[in-house]
């Protein structure tokens, strides 16, 4: 029977996995090494992705293959380069232009997304009818009361006095129940992640290694 040792890739993956797990005991050299390599490799990966998935297909290739049809791409090209002017003390202020456009554009996008994509539909979803069967009525009432009281809790420009005080208090209770529910909901998912990782170490690395060394 041919012995099949884990490949170099599996060795490396298992090594890094154990290095990171070692942090649970305490900070140590292995964790620090894995942490440094992780930072370097991941950053290098995003640099590679930027070239392979963005700059080459969406900027350089169109510009060099059909300049007449894609010359407007010179604008983001220039804005990208302008960012680097922050290293030229006398021209550093110009680099803020690119940042201003970037932040400005997404501010506009966010204004729309928040009001149109979140406020309007969430408000609509709360406009529930109370003329429903008793079983559904309780649920609808709980939702309506919850949304109203949580929103009242988030009032900042008026003191939480009078009827607003108990309303805001109920809002806080809603928030806490919800946080508890989300917490409980997430716990199980996180445990399954751990099981997945341990499965890799045992099945892909440890078991082939043991079989190769001790046979069986």
């Amino acid at each position, binding site marked *: 029977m041919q012995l099949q040792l884990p490949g170099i890739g599996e060795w490396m993956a298992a090594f890094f996995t154990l290095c990171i797990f070692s942090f649970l005991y305490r900070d140590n050299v292995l964790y620090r090494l894995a*942490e440094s390599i992780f930072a370097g490799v991941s*950053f290098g990966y995003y640099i590679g992705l930027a070239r392979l998935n963005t700059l080459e297909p969406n900027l350089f290739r169109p510009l060099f293959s059909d300049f007449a049809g894609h010359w407007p791409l010179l604008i983001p090209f220039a804005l990208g380069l302008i960012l680097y002017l922050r290293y030229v003390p006398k021209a550093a202020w110009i680099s803020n232009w690119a*940042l201003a456009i970037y932040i400005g554009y997404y501010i506009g996008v966010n204004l729309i997304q928040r009001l149109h994509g979140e406020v*309007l539909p969430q408000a609509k979803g709360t*406009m*529930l009818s109370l003329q429903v069967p008793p079983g559904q009525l309780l649920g609808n009432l709980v939702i309506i009361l919850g949304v109203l009281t949580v929103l009242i809790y988030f009032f900042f420009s008026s003191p939480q006095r009078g009827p607003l005080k108990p309303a805001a208090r109920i809002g806080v209770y809603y928030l806490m129940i919800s*946080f508890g529910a989300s917490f409980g909901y997430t716990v199980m998912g996180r445990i399954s992640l751990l099981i997945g990782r341990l499965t890799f170490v045992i099945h892909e690395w440890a078991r082939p290694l043991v079989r190769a060394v001790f046979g069986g």
Partner: protein
Amino acid sequence: MRVDRRGSGTIGRRPGRRGAARGALALLAALLAGGGLSGAGAAPAAGSDRENPRPLAATLAVADTPADGGSSLTLTWDGARLAAALAEAHGEAEDPAAAEEAAKEAAEEGVEEGAEEAADEAVEEAADAAETRAAARAGALPAPGAGEVDVERAAAGDTAFARIASVPASAGRFVDEGLERTTTYRYRLTGRGAGGRLLATPPTPPLAPRVNAFRTRRLNALAAMVFMGACVVGLILRARRGGQIYIRRISGLDAIDEAVGRATEMGRKILYIPGIISVNEPQTLASLGILGYVAKLTARYGTELEVPNIDPLTMAAAREIVKQSYMEEGHPEGFREEMVHYITGDQFAYAAAVNGIMVRDRPAANFLLGWFAAESLLLSETGQSIGAIQIAGTAQVTQLPFFVSACDYTMLGEELFAASAYLSRDPLILGSIAGQDVMKAAILAAIVLGVVLSTAGVAGFAAWFTAL
């Protein structure tokens, strides 16, 4: 004659094709289509009537879809009338005598058509059959159910109508999307009547979709933007005129001074984590606002500040803000670029590195403010384990529970934005918080009104809030 019955001289006809070759052509087309002849033969009444449908008692109208970019047309018809006409036609089918009569009529018509017409139809039927089978294979268009009609379309230059959808006859409306602005389209609705006989509405006149001036369906969003803008700008102007704006204390804000004071006393650093999203996220911008305040305190007391970043543009903006704060406090010499540095763009690599910073440098205070995902727990638990004061804030509902359990103070959702504005001490920005509260009050009132109207059976008000 056939042309007149179809109501169109351009659709379905293949002018100029005559002679004995047509029979062979028809046969060939049928064979290529894989059973076109047998298909036509299996349903003789249905087979021949694609060119010669019986009128369906309903008027189909087509119009440009308002408020779109010129890519759709809207069909309307009297749904109740069409459904009744279809039901009546089906009723005929249940009557054996009527079915027989219809079949006989169809047969006679078939004879009347003549050899040329039949050959022509055979070619088209073969094409139709192939088309239907292809659609069936793709699973795109299931056969119409009871009470349903087919929507058929023919673009300029098309030789036949093609089925594009099946809709309930009673729907009364269908929007055909994804059209070309440069092409005209004609439509008809078809259904099956007695004996499977094809019934069709008269085709609509050709029409091309056109570009409209405004997306009227998004008027609700425009109204929300204008109202919110008016509230915010109005209260900013009031603040500018010196009007008093009250803003209540936000939990966690007092703790910022306390945390910086503690770090100063202990001679340890403050770690400020501005979330894991770029400056395209308002939560990051809110976090940078709070960073400005924290940096002023650290500049004033000479406390060490470290701001590790996951996004280079956030780093650039954070660096400017920290630098500005040190200058405003009169300690430009206290600012070093390395205080605000970059780590990596990956959330877990970032979390691993920040956890390392926490356990090695043991900062006295950790600020976790901004947009966070799963790493929120990794960071806040490590911070908790080193005994740092932790002030967190995010609007991510899924991460708030972990911050609430692991941090000393947590700014919940909107509190993060309000805290950022509050700490600026700028009356104009404070005015904007009051403006956003007016909007909130309006939303509350709208919800209450919506509940009352929905309970009363008036759905129109809630429908106005639909995001289109």
